[in-house]
């Protein structure tokens, strides 16, 4: 009987301890449940943060992509410009090549041809003028004697009806023209050769040698 009572007491003690243990475990469970909830909430929070960060990151990536694309387009334009400029430079280089297409002797040949043409025109004009002189009533020229010292030598010869002077004056006119032509088209249009001849004489002591370029 005592034995049974001891066992009952022992079982009761064990039940109490188990009950206490259960209470402790329930407390523990509640605690863990709270912790789980906190963790779940934290997970949700973190997922939200991650989503936000992902959005920011994607925006940043998008901005960088746009910047990269802009830089690539700029690079492409620069490369195209470089290609264009290189082509131009190549063309300019060919133009600026120091290799002459004509030798000095060939150039001198052209100039001698030019001088020959000038001489021929001057002579033809003079010859026809001489024929004219013998067949036509010539209107006398009135030259103011006071102006004679300022008249250039060749013009003076023409005034004196010297054929050689006329030929030389024609040559001088033609030479002046072609020099002005080959030294730039802008200058000669306003130039009257006879005026310039008179001017060069009237400014005594001053002389203007034409050195184009």
């Amino acid at each position, binding site marked *: 009987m005592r034995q049974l009572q001891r066992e009952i007491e022992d079982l009761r003690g064990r039940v109490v301890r188990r009950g206490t243990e259960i209470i402790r475990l329930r407390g523990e469970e509640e605690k863990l449940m709270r912790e789980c909830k906190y963790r779940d909430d934290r997970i949700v929070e973190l997922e939200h943060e991650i989503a936000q960060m992902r959005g920011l990151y994607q925006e940043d990536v998008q901005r960088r992509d746009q910047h990269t694309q802009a830089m690539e387009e700029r690079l492409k334009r620069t490369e195209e410009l470089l290609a264009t400029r290189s082509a131009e430079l190549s063309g300019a280089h060919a133009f*600026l090549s120091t*290799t*002459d*297409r004509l030798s*000095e002797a060939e*150039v*001198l040949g*052209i*100039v*001698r041809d*030019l*001088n020959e*043409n*000038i001489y021929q*025109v001057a002579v*033809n*004009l003079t010859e*026809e*003028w001489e024929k*004219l002189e013998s067949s*036509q009533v*010539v*209107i*006398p*020229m009135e030259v103011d004697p006071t102006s004679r010292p300022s008249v*250039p*030598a*060749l013009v003076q010869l*023409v*005034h004196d*009806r*010297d054929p050689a002077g006329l030929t*030389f004056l*024609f*040559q*001088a*006119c*033609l*030479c*002046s023209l*072609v020099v002005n*032509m*080959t*030294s730039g*088209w802008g200058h*000669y*249009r306003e130039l*009257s*050769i*006879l005026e310039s*001849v008179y001017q*060069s004489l009237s400014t*005594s002591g001053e*002389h*203007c*040698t*034409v*050195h*184009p*370029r």
Partner: protein
Amino acid sequence: MTYSHLSRPPAHSTWLVEQLANVIDETGSFSSTQQSLEFIKAVALEGVESILRVALHLERVFMVEVTSSDMSLLYESPGTIFDDAGMSNEFGSGDAPASPGRQDRVAGTTEVGVGKSVYGRPDEGRLVKILLKTKVVLEKDVMGSEV
């Protein structure tokens, strides 16, 4: 006929014919400049155009075909003092210098010369090297003792 990109030959030939007509006017052979113009056109228009063609060719040569140096035509204005370094005398025996103390003056250029710009020593800069002397008539030769 080919022309330079810078040129309008008809205008040039007209201008040149007018200048030659002015010379003819100086002779007093015609009563009007129009008559002088007609005379020049009848006698020299073809020759003038030929000169223009050669001049245009030369312009192209100087601007495009000769690139190693600057070449140009040379011309002496009336009144310039004769300098045998760059001129030859139409009537001269060789290029004899003028008598001492005398400076001969150019009456007119009868043949154009050719010069080439080259670099000399550093202190000299660019120099014009004469390839073909300008041929000139001197006042003393055409005016005798009057000059």
